[in-house]
């Protein structure tokens, strides 16, 4: 089993680091690559643990403090691991006026965790997202890319979550 946080693995043989290094080599020298490297790293690792930030810092010559500053500034970057299934509840204005808060409350109640948190079993992470672009289906939530719309009746939510538990 590979160590999830990436801290004790051998970077020369860990294919995730190899992949990241290859990406860095392909862009190094161009201007303004810090964001794109972090984005690629987030894609490869799923999040940006300190070890990965260190690795990037060494390879692109940007101080780790600066990388950490960027990683914590933008909401798409995460420095903690995400759950297996990511629930995004749209809190765009159109969804909000149609009752997105109720959807959010129901999910928080069902999973017993807060927004931005992951369940102890690592199965779900709840996120409040901006407009998902399906205002016609408001209120909307998305689980791993699947869209569930017209959630006017929040009582259908437990059954939806159950599908992902198995």
């Amino acid at each position, binding site marked *: 089993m590979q160590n999830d946080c990436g801290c004790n693995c051998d970077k020369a043989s860990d294919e995730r680091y190899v992949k990241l290094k290859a990406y860095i080599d392909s862009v190094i020298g161009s201007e303004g690559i810090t964001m794109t490297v972090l984005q690629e790293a987030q894609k490869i690792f799923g999040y940006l643990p300190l070890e990965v930030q260190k690795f990037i810092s060494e390879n692109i010559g940007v101080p780790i403090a600066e990388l950490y500053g960027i990683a914590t500034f933008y909401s798409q970057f995460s420095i903690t691991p995400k759950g297996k299934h990511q629930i995004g509840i749209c809190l765009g204005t159109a969804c909000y006026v149609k009752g997105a808060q109720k959807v959010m409350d129901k999910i928080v109640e069902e999973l017993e965790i807060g927004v931005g948190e992951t369940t102890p079993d690592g199965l779900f992470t709840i996120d409040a997202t901006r407009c998902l*672009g399906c205002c016609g289906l408001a209120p909307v939530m998305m689980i791993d890319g699947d869209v569930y719309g017209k959630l006017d009746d929040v009582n259908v939510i437990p059954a939806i979550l159950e599908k992902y538990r198995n």
Partner: protein
Amino acid sequence: MDKSINELNQLKANAVKNLEATEGRRIIVGMASCGISAGARAVLEKLQEEVAAAGLDNVQVLPTGCVGMCIYEPIVEIFEPGKEKVNYIHMNPDRVSKVVSEHLVNGRPVKEYTLGEDEESKLKNLNDLQFYKKQKRNVLKNCGFINPEDINDYIAVDGYQALAKAVTKMTPKEVIDIMKASGLRGRGGAGFPTGLKWSFAAANEADQKYIICNADEGDPGAFMDRSILEGDPHSVLEAMAISGYAIGASKGYIYVRAEYPVAVERLKIAINQAKEKGFIGKNIFGSDFDFDIEIRLGAGAFVCGEETALIASIEGKRGMSRNKPPFPANKGLWGKPTIINNVETLSNIPKIILNGPEWFRSMGTEKSPGTKVFALGGKINNTGLVEVPMGITLKEVIYDIGGGCPNGKAFKAVQTGGPSGGCLPVEDLDVPIDFDNLVAAGSMMGSGGMIVMDEDNCMVDIARFFLDFTVDESCGKCTPCREGTKRMLEILDKITQGNGTMEDLAVLEDLAENIQNTSLCALGQTAPNPVLSTMKLFKDEYLAHVVDKRCPTGVCKALLRYFITDACTGCTLCAKKCPAKAITGTVKEKHYIDQDKCIKCGVCMDNCRFNAIIKK
């Protein structure tokens, strides 16, 4: 030099034949994010599968962008030579099978899946709907018609003709003069004249200049830029090249939200195709003009829609805004003169070059010519993307196009301008929409989000919602915005919890004014607008929360109370379901809710079969 233009015209001649389906049938599926969310991908795949299985020749099944009517997604349209097009709505894979066997094989359109309420109005064309009648689709013309993943479709509708005309027949100054004459104003929010902005950057001497397309559409209720990128990406690329030619820039960046994966993918395809054809690259159309375009992804920060923050983000830094001047047209990306234009603004440009400034001025009002796209959402029947000439009234947009509020509810207000804007009440419905009128009415155009609210929406809660958004999105650089908005939110929280005082209202107003006057960038300067606007127009609601400790609409949970009316039959269901054991009563007698124990979850109301529970 002419050879390239001749080549373009040759390409066009072939592409037109294909697009007009003169030799076969063309089936398009609305595949913008909205369509995909509603299940369009499965419909497209099923169509392709069934068409192949039925061995049909000369049938093309293609994706297209947003048709505009979200409520009917997934939408499929079938074009046949010499026949009226047929629109199918609410499609799913099962319906596809029937459409293929009945319509495509036997030539009998499946009426039941088409528009129209009764037998007679079936087979109605989407374009005949009231929804489209008052619209003027100029920017959105190609969205929902052409295949955004095929450059030939764009070429068929005069694509890249404007770029060819500009670089081969016009000087950069002539291009700028046309833009100035057209009166085009930036569609991203503030409405600054585009031609004037270009002229500033053109006047600066520099070894390198940049064009940036601002596709960081952050207003939580607006999605027109996404739709344009997903439905007509080449129009944006063409416009960027034209503006590059005008100001002397050879490099362009598209800064697009990472939350728009479909748009990003289509942009990538479009850039590759344009490069392949030589419309982007070196010596465009045989001229000595070079232009290259690169995509940069945002990472979820609303403030990056502000131009100086956007520049910082492209440079790979935290997206924090800075003082202006110097303006980006003088000192922008990496210190070089930079022009930042919004997606919708750009999309207007090729059409203006081809049709002339008079054509553009023939639409809209004198000070705000042209059209504007609005994302109509919230409590409205026809949710969707609408494009209207400037000067149309709010009433026409909300009632004639949008069809008013659903379920017979009364219209309360429309919110425009997103987190920077304000609300417009019933009294303002006759205001003709343009940049200046909306500001005069206490709101703003913003990027074009238009969220309708009905009698069930609490305006204090809406103000709190927007402030919650800005607090979350403040970059934290300047104190008024970072600390001030947070304090305002705390006061609003206090009010919606039922603990507000009259003094709080005064402090709120005072804070708002200070934040407006002292914040560094537009995010902070406009953050108090939703609060000020609702406080001015719906003071009574604020007073109800503060003085009467009551939320008139029942949205603010803490102020809400559930009651059991005389309709109660004493079935005991509510008492059994209540998680707080707050309901008491004996069988077949009216039950009561203990207000101290009630946690206001609403389970009793949801479960009551006799509508005997009310909230107020």
